[in-house]
């Protein structure tokens, strides 16, 4: 039995929403577009571009989790028991190879989507974990606007971020702060033609009250727990001294549409 607290300054009133904090990803252009980095206490959606990118989207979540949850707080990772066979078993060794701390990982196995959403909302409300991740496969019809708004409110109230991973799903309207499309990208080869650090193609599909349609190719730097912009693929001809750098044209990528200006500015910062 706990002794009643002697002083409780905010007893009786609802706790005020915590100050909005950001986790700086390490890439200046990305952080600028997001207003300082990935916001804590918000919902971020990550859509795998194809089923083959299921590894990428989860790897990205592990990296983000290592950064956003903080060193001594748990990460609650929720998945559906029905999809375990297709999705594979989460590996602590791979988790730690990406810079996460598997000792802090709590794995929730839920029977259906409704329980998944309820458990996520409860975890967000309790503010006990440092980050909540939902690994969702398929359409998830139960995750409608109301449910997503509920999750967003719970996250805002507690200041704990929710990463919503969507695999084999088409983007649908939701109350998320940001919506991303994630795909694996060719990595920088290590000596001996070995695959290098994890590299992702990220497209910012939508952002509440902020720019969208931008894309980045990011490399996850495990030892510093930060992203950095991946160099363009292919052999890079060294720029001769004396020639202005501005000659290099930014690589225009599709998907930007009317935000092409911002997209180019991102690329040329590389």
């Amino acid at each position: 039995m706990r002794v009643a607290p002697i002083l409780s300054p905010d007893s009786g009133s609802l706790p005020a929403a915590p100050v909005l904090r950001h986790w700086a990803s390490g890439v200046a252009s990305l952080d600028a577009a997001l207003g300082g980095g990935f916001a804590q206490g918000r919902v971020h959606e990550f859509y795998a571009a194809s089923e083959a990118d299921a590894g990428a989207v989860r790897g990205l979540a592990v990296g983000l989790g290592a950064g956003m949850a903080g060193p001594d707080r748990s990460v609650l990772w929720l998945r559906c028991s029905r999809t375990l066979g297709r999705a594979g078993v989460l590996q602590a060794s791979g988790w730690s190879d990406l810079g996460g701390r598997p000792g802090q990982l709590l794995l929730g196995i839920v029977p259906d989507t409704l329980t998944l959403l309820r458990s996520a909302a409860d975890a967000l409300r309790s503010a006990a974990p440092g980050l909540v991740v939902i690994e969702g496969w398929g359409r998830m019809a139960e995750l409608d606007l109301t449910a997503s708004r509920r999750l967003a409110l719970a996250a805002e109230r507690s200041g704990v971020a929710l990463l919503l991973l969507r695999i084999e799903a088409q983007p649908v309207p939701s109350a998320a702060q940001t919506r991303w499309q994630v795909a694996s990208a060719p990595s920088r080869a290590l000596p001996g033609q070995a695959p290098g650090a994890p590299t992702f193609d990220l497209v910012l599909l939508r952002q509440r009250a902020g720019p969208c349609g931008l894309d980045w190719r990011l490399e996850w730097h495990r030892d510093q727990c930060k992203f950095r912009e991946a160099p363009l693929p292919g052999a890079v001809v060294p720029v001769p001294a004396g020639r202005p750098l501005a000659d290099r044209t930014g690589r225009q990528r599709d998907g930007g549409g009317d935000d092409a200006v911002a997209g180019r500015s991102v690329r040329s910062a590389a």
Partner: protein
Amino acid sequence: MMPSLAGACAAPPEAAPAPLAFVTRVGGALRLAAVDQTAQRLGIVPGLTLADARARHPDLAVTDMDPEADRHWLGRLARRCQGWSPLVTPVPPDAVVLDMAGSAHLFGGEAALAALVDDTMAELGMTCRLARADTAEAALALARHAPGPVTDEPAALRALPVIALGLDPEATLALRRAGLRTVGDLAARPAASLAARFGAGAVTALRRLLGDERRPIAPMAQPAPLRFERRFAEPIAHERAVAACFRDLLVEAAGALEQRGQGGRRFVLTLLRSDGARHRLRIETGAPTRDPALVLRLFDERIGALADPLDPGFGYDSIVLAVPLAEPLGAAQPGLDGRDSAAAVLAELIDRLSTRLGPGGVLRLVPHDSHIPERGQQAVPASRTPAPVRWPPPQPGEPPLRPIVLFDPPQPVEVIAEVPDGPPHRFRWRRTLHEVRLYEGPERIAAEWWRRRGGELPGQGGLTRDYYRIEDAHGHRYWLFRHGLYDEKPAPRWYMHGLFA
């Protein structure tokens, strides 16, 4: 009653053939402290040095003697015996004494009770020697030293060797040297001369053994079960009334637990319906608690997770709350700002989710001692591993060497390699063709040949796996392996085992 302890502690019943012995260090030598029945039959006796025993029987299986574990097990056996009599006490190292005066008739008499005890212990895998006598000392002496079943108690007691008195070794030796071999020899002498020669202790032990002097046993404390009950003159069916009553019970339980300095780990609520049906609801918490609000929330979760809702029917006659598992819990000092510590909040969340999803619903990954990738970790319920587990940190500067997800079982792929035992050149997985752009490998992982029968023989140890880290032309990273070397198997197959980020 005297169960034969050491033999039953570790020996699995089906692995009978190898004799088993428990050793302890005496002076500079390892000596056998206890042996199992197989070893006894082979003539290996306690007290032998390990070297001698090994020389006689090289296949002797040896384990360290663990007196603490024996004492713990004896305590558990004694608690099991409390069902037959309230006065039970364990007598280390190997005996339990039951005072069955006044309780034997409940089981059909002393002989029937003895048979019942024997059967129950046999079910637990224990061999025991039972003896009944007027005093605890006599029963212990008969159980330990009587050669066979006892029919005439006084005669059997008098025939016991003097070691049964339990005197110190010097006094026992002195008695033997004086030509006094049995208890009967001693009893025939005048007590005064015995006391003069061997001390008053010998006389007291003799009188107790023969029942001239009685000493009550000091029974194990038997804590009253934590059980709280409400009975109603009229059945109650209204949800609010049931909830209010349940809250009262929880507050009562909290008070009782606080008096004992304990917190409950397991709570069982039984609702007895007026038509005789009973509903049992059980919750468990990861840490001991006596906070009624917390327990109430967990029961709400439990009721919410039921497949069919509770039907009160014509109402409940009585409501019972039991706390079958309680652990010590001291008072905690909260912070001055009134906020709970992060660990407590997390434990509460784990309890809630575990109650909703079942104990296997919230897991932590802990390392498992195996180099085979799919056996390198174990998922254990988070409510039973409160502390975060330590995992070895990765090598700085290296790319990820292990995948983030593993397929179990591995998925077959069709691979085209440039040379038979070379790396894959392209492969087909889930009906898609992938061109290999970058690869690293092979990382050769041998099978755990020591787990197989005859695995140490060449060609019998299981197939070796050659793992490759692969990146295809689109940048997807995979973990593929070839199951078997070419000299182990003619056409080894390839499998997709995991995905990298």
